[in-house]
């Protein structure tokens, strides 16, 4: 187990030295600054606007803006997770960085677990800081707070961990660039699933809604994001609730405990596939 922590620490130090980490941090500061400005203007303007009947304007504005911030958080977290893991196996083997490590008396699975923990140690705090910073900015500017405070943030973090695991799995078989593209496309597929769900709800098409749900569960980071969106307006009902459930980037859908269990199982399955693939790989 100490080898796992040694490699995780090594991976963490390497991650923090990568330029992508600095770029993401700069993007984060820019995003939060723009988000704060946007929230400030939005709440300022709705004070002077008469909303349609049945719509609670401050709640709608707060939840809509915060939903967008959640998407931004998920997106930047995914960027970070992919860039930290896309070359873990084949990429590092091609750069001859991996071989000196795996000839040591540690299991190959330990290397994967360690690199996953290293990526998680960067991505999870990042997502949580971003999530809570957006929430505080929204609350301070509009006096709106989500119905569930912690759970949506944890679900976003779990979604990013799933992307990191998928990227690790991809790194066993694909070169760094191919893996990065593949995982981003998978992330895009999840986004499309969410948008399809939106359209399904607007058209009241049960077939489309069902297909979107299956697609979202096939890539559970999307289903977790949708569940998080749902949780922030859990107690909001009426027209406001309906509009918010359509979401800014993918609809809000309740996943519940079944989704969380599936996410854990999915993570384990992806991990096992990566370990099995790596064990058979010639380096």
């Amino acid at each position, binding site marked *: 187990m100490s080898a796992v922590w*040694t490699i995780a620490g090594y991976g963490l130090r390497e991650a923090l030295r990568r330029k992508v980490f600095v770029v993401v941090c700069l993007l984060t500061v820019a995003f939060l600054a723009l988000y704060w400005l946007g929230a400030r203007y939005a709440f300022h303007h709705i004070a002077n606007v008469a909303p349609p009947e049945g719509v609670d304007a401050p709640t709608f504005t707060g939840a809509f803006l915060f939903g967008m911030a959640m998407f931004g958080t998920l997106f930047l977290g995914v960027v970070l997770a992919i860039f930290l893991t896309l070359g873990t196996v084949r990429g590092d083997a091609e750069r001859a960085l991996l071989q000196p*490590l795996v000839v040591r008396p540690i299991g190959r699975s330990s290397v994967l677990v360690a690199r996953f923990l290293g990526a998680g140690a960067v991505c999870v705090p990042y997502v949580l800081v971003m999530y809570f910073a957006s929430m505080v900015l929204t609350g301070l500017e509009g006096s709106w707070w989500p119905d569930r405070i912690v759970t949506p943030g944890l679900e976003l973090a779990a979604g990013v961990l799933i992307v990191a695991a998928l990227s690790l799995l991809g790194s066993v078989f694909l070169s760094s660039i191919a893996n990065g593209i593949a995982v981003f496309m998978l992330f895009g597929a999840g986004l499309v699933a969410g948008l399809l769900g939106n359209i399904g709800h607007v058209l009241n098409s049960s077939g489309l809604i069902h297909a979107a749900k299956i697609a979202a569960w096939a890539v559970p980071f999307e289903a977790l994001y949708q569940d998080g969106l749902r949780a922030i307006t859990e107690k909001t009902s009426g027209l406001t609730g309906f509009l918010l459930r359509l979401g800014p980037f993918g609809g809000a859908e309740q996943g519940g405990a079944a989704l969380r269990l599936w996410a854990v199982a999915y993570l384990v399955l992806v991990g096992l596939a990566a370990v099995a693939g790596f064990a058979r790989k*010639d*380096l």
Partner: protein
Amino acid sequence: MPAALAVRGLVKRYGTIDALAGVDLEVREGQLVGLLGPNGAGKSTLVKIACGLVRATSGHAEVCGAGAGSRAARSAIGYLAELFRFPGWMSADELLVLHQRLAGSGPDERQRTELLELVGLRDARSRRVEEMSKGMQQRLGIAQALVGSPRLLLLDEPTSALDPVGRRTVRRLLEELKLRGVSVLLNSHLLSEVELVCDRVVILLGGKVVAAGSPGELARSRGVEVETNGGTRTYADARREDVPRLVAELVRTGQEVYGVRLLTSTLEEVYVDAVGGQTS
């Protein structure tokens, strides 16, 4: 006591290409074996199988009695790849600490100091890898391979980036390791070095062993050279046992003999004969 490395009928196939086609090889305890062959002969594949980086298609490889690639086998080896890279941001000392932890030997500062001294990098302890020359990195690679006091050292072209002084440092290091009883499989193109330090030489061609033995056993007799007052005479077909007779005949015919030298082929000539002039 089991051999440090025992390889029997080893086959490795990449698609339709046989990288190794039934190799038998043994490195005994404390023995230094040179692995020679043209590019693509299968040398690196053999070393990688011994390290557990590559799985054999068939055959068997054991390191100190344990299956190659097993945890026990990996605990007994030190490895330096032909192409290797260490994280540029790490210092020499940090890299050795990392490998000490992975080898399970703990961050022993005394061992790190000794290893850095052995490879002539004592003053570069705090220097980052990215600030080192290729030769320094290669010597650091050797120090890294020695972390954990391995019983078998697998070195794949360890002197390819070194200048003559660096090569001499490595040669002395190999001799020192031999004295300590460490077994070494040295994969190298530098025949003169292999000839100087190795107990045995194995030549691979097309994934097969085409010659094996000590440098002395592999060297063929190329006659006897006798220096006399009438000049130097070469007897191309003569052998060591012919020398007394040759000298007696020369003395009987009134010539003065100043010196006798047995002529043998160099390892380079043995190698060229064995691989048939093939380069890759």
